[in-house]
């Protein structure tokens, strides 16, 4: 365990930023937080979490894959790939760290998505334990411990100090490079901090929510539940829930006519949209009920079925606070799974 006093945090950021681009949550004028590049004078936000999740660093909303240019009868294929610089993301919460594992299983399994893989290789994650979880947090439902966030380096913050522990070789190298600022210490303060967090976790309103009724093999049982109709009744199909979600991973590949050529790019897609997975024969989900059901079946049944019973929700609560009609995965779990979480 190593530590530095909070007064020195900017020195630490400056040192990290010498060798890599450093991103961290920063307050916006409207009170929300967003990941921004650190520059001298950038203040680390105290907010619990960012509205947009850090999945953007590895799986950005849009990215160019390749370009085409026609010259007479030949088509030139242009490699638009840009190798990312090394970067460090500071302050990632435990829930969001888990989301990277969930994305990895999709993008790093064969055939490996080289765009994603390259960003993963260039990135170092410094997580941060939560001190003030929200009523919307339910990471524990998925076995995530906000007092023990993962990542290359785990960090804990008290009123006066920040503590660090490395979990990977990449993380250890970075901590070693910060030797001049960090000092060695015992685990006492971090243990006290963990105990505090755990006490809070036991008071959260969603503390008893379980995944009962979901998981691989549950398709036949719940797919035709009459409750989907009621749950999706007022869903706007806006896709906000999917775009703020750290684990939503669907994308579309599209061509953009630049006037002088074509840029082929990929962008996030949403199962909530009417043209999602539209093919030559038309669409396989024609009602909002079917689209709505897809989102939750994917997170709670299909993904675990294909991934050793790991659910692809991390309980970050973003869809709870951002859905315009306040419909969300917790309400779905309680209704369909029949577990009232009380």
């Amino acid at each position, binding site marked *: 365990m190593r530590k530095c006093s909070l007064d020195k945090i900017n020195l630490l950021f400056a040192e990290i930023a010498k060798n890599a681009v450093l991103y961290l949550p920063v307050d*916006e004028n*409207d*009170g*929300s937080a*967003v990941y921004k590049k650190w520059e001298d004078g950038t203040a680390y936000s105290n907010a*619990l979490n960012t*509205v*947009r999740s850090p999945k953007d660093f590895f799986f950005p*909303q*849009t990215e160019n894959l390749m370009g085409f240019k026609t010259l007479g009868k030949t088509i030139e294929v242009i490699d638009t790939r840009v190798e990312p610089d090394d970067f460090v993301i500071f302050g990632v919460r435990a829930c969001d760290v888990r989301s990277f594992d969930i994305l990895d299983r999709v993008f790093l399994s064969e055939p490996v998505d080289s765009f994603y893989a390259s960003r993963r290789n260039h990135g170092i994650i410094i997580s941060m334990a939560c001190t*003030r*979880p*929200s*009523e*919307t947090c339910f990471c524990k439902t998925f076995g995530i411990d906000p007092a023990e966030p993962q990542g290359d380096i785990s960090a804990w913050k008290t009123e006066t100090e920040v503590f660090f522990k490395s979990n990977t070789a990449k993380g250890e190298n970075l901590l070693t490079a910060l030797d001049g600022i960090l000092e060695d210490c015992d685990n006492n303060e971090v243990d006290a901090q963990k105990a505090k967090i755990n006490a*809070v976790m036991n*008071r*959260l*309103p*969603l503390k008893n929510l379980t995944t009962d009724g979901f998981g691989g093999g549950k398709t036949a049982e719940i797919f035709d539940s009459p409750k989907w109709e*009621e749950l999706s*009744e*007022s869903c*706007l*199909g*806006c*896709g*906000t829930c*999917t*775009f*703020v979600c750290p684990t939503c991973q669907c994308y*579309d590949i*599209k061509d*953009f006519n630049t006037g002088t050529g074509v*840029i082929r*790019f990929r*962008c*996030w*897609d*949403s199962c909530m*949209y*009417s*043209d999602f997975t*539209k093919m030559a024969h038309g669409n396989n989900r024609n009602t909002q009920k079917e689209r709505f059901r897809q989102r939750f079946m994917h997170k709670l049944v299909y993904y675990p079925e294909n991934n050793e019973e790991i659910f692809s929700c991390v309980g970050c609560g973003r869809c*709870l*606070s*951002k859905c*315009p*009609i*306040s*419909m969300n995965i*917790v*309400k779905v779990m309680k209704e369909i799974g029949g577990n009232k979480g009380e």
Partner: protein
Amino acid sequence: MQKITGDILIEKASALLSSGTVSCVLGWKKGEFGYDVTPAVFSSVEELERDFVYNDFCGANFSKYLVSKTRKLEGKILVFLKPCDTYSFNQLLSEHRFDREKVYAIGIPCEGMVDISKVKATVGEGISSIDTDGDNLLVSTLYDEEPVAVDFKSVLAERCINCKSKKHVAYDELLGEEGDVIENSRFDEVARIEALTPDERFAFWQNELSRCIRCNACRDACPACTCEKCVFDNPASGVENKSPANSFEEKLFHIIRAYHVAGRCTDCGECSRVCPQNIPLHLLNRKFIKDMNEFYGEYQAGEEVGMRAPLVSYTTEDLEPGEALTRRDTDA
């Protein structure tokens, strides 16, 4: 004035359901934390008694739901409308978007709805319950021993601070007393932005719109956006996009949308309410409303059914092309 409570609405709705006047009720369903209410359809007294709620967080405008629900559901639908909602209701009727015969509308008075993000900015995360006590909200959190008193007025939604009317322009039945169209300062912020230099104005919108994640919540919640197939959802349109290909497209979406709802936008404020990125979309629409008021005379969309909007009715007093620019320059 008698305060409208959930119980009063449940009683009203139950009576109308039981008498067969309506076959279902569009209302708000209880959530997990008090503030997270969901629009829902109730078809029995039991459902109403179990789940119906009416509190300071019932901001959702139900008018747009009538387009789909009147087609889907049998019989008459009971809908509760706040004053601002009634303007959207009329505007949709002007555009023949739903069958008035299939709706029973009850106007409910409104003192303003609360923006939960403002509450959280005041008390922090971890809200466990919210009660009302006179002019205050009493917010209990997981972190404070005692409930924190928060002044109701300080956490009102932007659109409610700048409320344009407490008067209902459409209903079959009104609960409580009728209000009036009220003085408001909703164009002040627009005027402030108008006074900026073009570069500053560009920077302002650049900063706001670059945060857009193109979730389309603004469009999907907007009662003026009721096209059967939005051009941005239509792969055959050539401009369909799930996210902007570049920063030009990013702005284009909002500008096209603002033009498309010009003269039809009632300034209900749903777009800004639902935006997860807190982009002040209402300012774009208010700029259009303000200009139309100045150029063609005062006009409030949805005030009456069947009004001719300034942009689709010609009069000889209309502004000549180019005059807007000259006027702006001479004003400045």
